[in-house]
């Protein structure tokens, strides 16, 4: 019984940390939190009671990775978790499938077209993707550049409303 109560207390503490991390924005797409982005792999208490957070990078060279690490560190310190360990988890690699449905909704509302397809099949990458314009909803869009303002985005233009926009790539 005592063990069960202890487990529940740990679960509640971990849930509180998840909520805390859900307030940490992605520095390049601040409308998304790092939890929306799907880069928080675990929140757990080790046998010694020490809190450990697992983060995975989106792209190997993403400059936001270090900013995210220090934002997480700050958030943890501010809420009494100064001794928490932040671990880098590489495997399995992050894919855009980890974006939550909430993230898709927020991206579209922010003017960034969310990834169009799941990428469990790598062949997906080779097909011509039809991207929906986040402004007017038209499917008549053209890719201007494979690479956009950040590694995770490509640059598109809508043929209907003529607006240029970012597309969050499938990875």
């Amino acid at each position: 019984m005592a063990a069960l109560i202890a487990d529940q207390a740990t679960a509640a503490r971990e849930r509180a940390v998840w909520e805390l991390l859900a307030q940490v924005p992605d520095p390049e797409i601040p409308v998304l939190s790092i939890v929306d982005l799907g880069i928080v792999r675990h929140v757990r208490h080790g046998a010694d009671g020490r809190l450990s957070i697992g983060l995975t990078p989106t792209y190997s060279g993403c400059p936001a990775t270090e900013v995210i690490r220090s934002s997480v560190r700050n958030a943890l310190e501010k809420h009494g978790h100064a001794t928490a360990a932040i671990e880098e988890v590489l495997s399995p690699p992050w894919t855009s499938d980890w974006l939550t449905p909430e993230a898709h909704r927020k991206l579209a509302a922010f003017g960034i077209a969310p990834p169009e397809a799941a990428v469990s099949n790598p062949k997906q990458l080779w097909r011509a993707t039809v991207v929906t314009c986040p402004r007017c909803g038209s499917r008549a869009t053209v890719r201007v550049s494979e690479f956009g303002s950040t590694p995770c985005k490509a640059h598109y233009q809508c043929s209907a409303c003529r607006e240029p926009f970012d597309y969050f790539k499938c990875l």
Partner: protein
Amino acid sequence: MSTALAAALRPERVLNEALLRYVLRLGDTSLVLGQRLGEWVGHAPTLEEDLGLANLALDLIGQARLFLTYAGEIEGRERDEDALAYLRDAPDFFNLALAEQPNGDFGATIVRQWLIDAWQLQIYSGLQESTDSRLAAIAAKALKETRYHYRFSSGWLVRLGDGTAESHERVQRAVDELWRFTSELFAPDEVDERMAAAGIAPPLGAQEARWSACVEEDLRAATLKRPSEQPYPWHGKRGVHTEHLGYVLAEMQHLQRTYPGARW
């Protein structure tokens, strides 16, 4: 025999040395190619391609960081990614000689990129099954990015090769010029053999056949000819470089060499 010497001859020690060398080869190739691509920033033919090349560079340098951090841990001499990138001299770099070749025109940069992308596709696919879980994880991550790089470089190869008479001629010249550096991509030495025997890296033979088929197909689509010339055996991965690497390092390492330990 002294105990130190006996310890030095332990098979694990030999394997560890080979693994260190192997990981440095992968990391150095990504780092040097990334540094080369960085030279394009502000100079590419159009803004979109400028961004494209910079993004490729960013991915490559990110991959290099993962490999070099791991190399530093294998070495166990407290050298981190920065110490390995900024404080080694050319003979201690083990990148493919192809990666250090000058950018040339946009077409030459594309050809160099495409040859290495096609190589990395094979190497990283194979490494996903590595018995070394850290390498397998880095490779799985890098492979996803490399697919984008390859789509970009092979797409441009076809557009330039099957483009105007001038773009065709220039990109064919770049293929002819760079072809001689392809010999070392899949030529196994004792490091590769140790890695293959330990199940850490896949044997290079089968990979070469797949790389060759892929390159052949792209050349055909681009209406380009595969050079008949037998490539000269370069040894970048053994630390024997063309003169160009020294210039790349001089620029890349300048700040850390002048102001050791400088940070911002």
